[in-house]
């Protein structure tokens, strides 16, 4: 009950305080909770469980693992969900330690947008571009089925796992052979095969010019002027089929192609997308 009340209080607080005007200097606040469900996706019990898990993992690794849900990022004066997440992170002075290490998952429910943002040197080391997408790919599977609790639990679990690996000096990043995506065998085949195919096509084109004699298959030159009469032209709609395909989240906002972590001018790494 207490948690629910806290969530409602946060929602009210966010709505009242996170206006464009509220981002003036000196109005920064602190956030007591790691899980703030202003959109009302979780039960009190679920929120408590997630809060406990996030708090334990955050304090263990010195890196905050945050969740915020809202109805629409536009209500807070932001143009996109990514800016909204960064705005919240700064406004509430999120993060632990001097570097304010932390990772925030923000869900904006109206358009099913999400942003996953990391801040601070320790967080950037643990949540590489590749790792960040690994985390989002995993929780999106739950959110697509409206399994909010499952998705958040998965996020906290993965974030903790990634922090553990980074602490061990082995952060989750692009596997070496995925940097180019091609084995040496494939490369060799490409180096030999593609030029050979192009050369073959060009040479066959030249050869065709040497052998132009062929039997005529059409009589286009002998059409009588105005001699084409279309008497029946019927196009009858029969039926319709609709298929829905889940598409992978675009990764352009955060890079992700070559390993490491891309940090923007605001000091954030991560990406955004839809679920």
């Amino acid at each position, binding site marked *: 009950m207490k948690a629910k009340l806290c969530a409602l209080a946060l929602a009210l607080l966010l709505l009242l305080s996170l206006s464009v005007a509220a981002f003036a200097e000196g109005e920064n606040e602190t956030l007591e909770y790691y899980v703030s469900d202003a959109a009302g996706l979780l039960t009190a019990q679920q929120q408590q469980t997630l809060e406990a898990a996030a708090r334990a993992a955050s304090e263990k690794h010195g890196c905050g693992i945050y969740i915020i849900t809202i109805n629409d990022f536009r209500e807070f004066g932001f143009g996109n969900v990514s800016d909204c997440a960064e705005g919240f992170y700064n406004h509430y002075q999120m993060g632990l330690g001097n570097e304010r290490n932390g990772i925030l998952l923000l869900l904006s429910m109206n358009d099913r947008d999400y942003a996953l943002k990391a801040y601070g040197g320790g967080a950037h080391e643990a949540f590489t571009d590749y790792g960040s997408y690994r985390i989002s790919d995993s929780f999106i599977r739950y959110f697509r089925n409206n399994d909010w609790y499952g998705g958040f639990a998965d996020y906290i679990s993965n974030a903790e796992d990634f922090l553990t690996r980074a602490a061990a000096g082995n952060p989750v990043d692009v596997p070496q052979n995925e940097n180019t995506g091609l084995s040496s065998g494939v490369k060799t085949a490409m180096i030999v095969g593609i030029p050979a195919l192009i050369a073959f096509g060009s040479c066959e084109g030249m050869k065709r010019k040497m052998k132009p004699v062929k039997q005529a298959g059409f009589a*286009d030159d002998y*059409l009588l002027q105005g001699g084409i009469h279309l008497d029946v032209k019927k196009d*009858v709609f029969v039926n319709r*089929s609709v298929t829905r395909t889940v598409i992978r989240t675009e990764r352009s906002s955060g890079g992700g192609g070559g390993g490491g972590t891309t940090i923007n001018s605001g000091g954030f790494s991560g990406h955004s997308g839809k679920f």
Partner: protein
Amino acid sequence: MSSQLTNYQCPACTGPLRYDGESGMLQCDYCGSRYTAEEIEKLYQDKLDQAEQTSVDAAASAAAAAAPGTDNGDAEQAYAEESWNAEQEGMKLYNCPSCGAQLICDATTAATSCPYCGNPTVMPGQFHGMLKPDYILPFRVTKEQAVAALKKYYHGKRLLPKTFLAQNHIQEVKGMYVPFWLFDGTVYADMEYRTTRVSAIRQGDEMITTTDFFDVRRAGTVHFTRIPADGSKKMPDELMDSIEPYDYSEMKPFSTAYMPGYLADIYDVDDRESYERAKVRGTHTAEHLMDSTVSGYSSVSPVRKQVRMKRERTAYALLPVWMLSTQWNGENFIFAMNGQTGKFIGDLPVSRGRYFAWFAGIAAPLAAVMAIVLYFL
């Protein structure tokens, strides 16, 4: 029996006349006189009428003189048997009206030149009855232009063996009137297709793909005029097809006056056999036209087609073709040129060495660039 030959002679100097494609007139190479085809036709029609009258008189005299059992009758029979044997071999005997030499020609030959005196001769008897063409399309391209076109044709052929240019020799250049059947016809096409129109929109993290299915039907008629099909077994069909099209607006009613100086054959493939080729071409074009009216769809699959061509008028025409042959490495290469438009075509030999040199020349730099891109960048 020897058949009749006509050697068009210059009314001014009695020298042989030949048809000059460039000027479109009959020309005497000896005195330089020129005549239109109509003028010569009229002149020779008058001569023919006189000859027929003389022939009737001579036949009456011969009938009176020839009594049964005379030696004269046996001799004629022996000569007839000899001629008959020659015809059995698919040949015909002619006497050159200029030098009197006996010419043995193919049964389909309708115009040639005497190998002894070189005079161009026409066999008007070949064009009687069903064998008489409706039209003739006179030559416009000269022999010199045809030879020049062959040399030009070699340019830009990157796979042509180097030695071909140096060693090939033009064996023969023949201006020929080739017999063609020209078919008018109407194709009736009734075709059905199953088509789809696909649209996709993104909603959130989902791509919603909508596919609409349609049954489409097109039916109509397509009219063709003068689809050509050569009526000569000697002429390769694909070579004759490749020099199309001809501009039929320049076609003239048939006259042998356009033939001196050129070779000519009568048809030995009849219209029924040739029509099959024209029909295939007509129906293919009609199908293609029907297909092209089915547009705006993502996919189109034909499910039923009923296409038939109704043959209408058929014309028989002699169309001008320059045939050139060269020999290289013991192999003959035949080229054809449209005697009206100058369109030139023929297969050429391919140098394996040049083929592989080009192959390596293209593949090696590409491979080097790809290696740099894949391994070093």
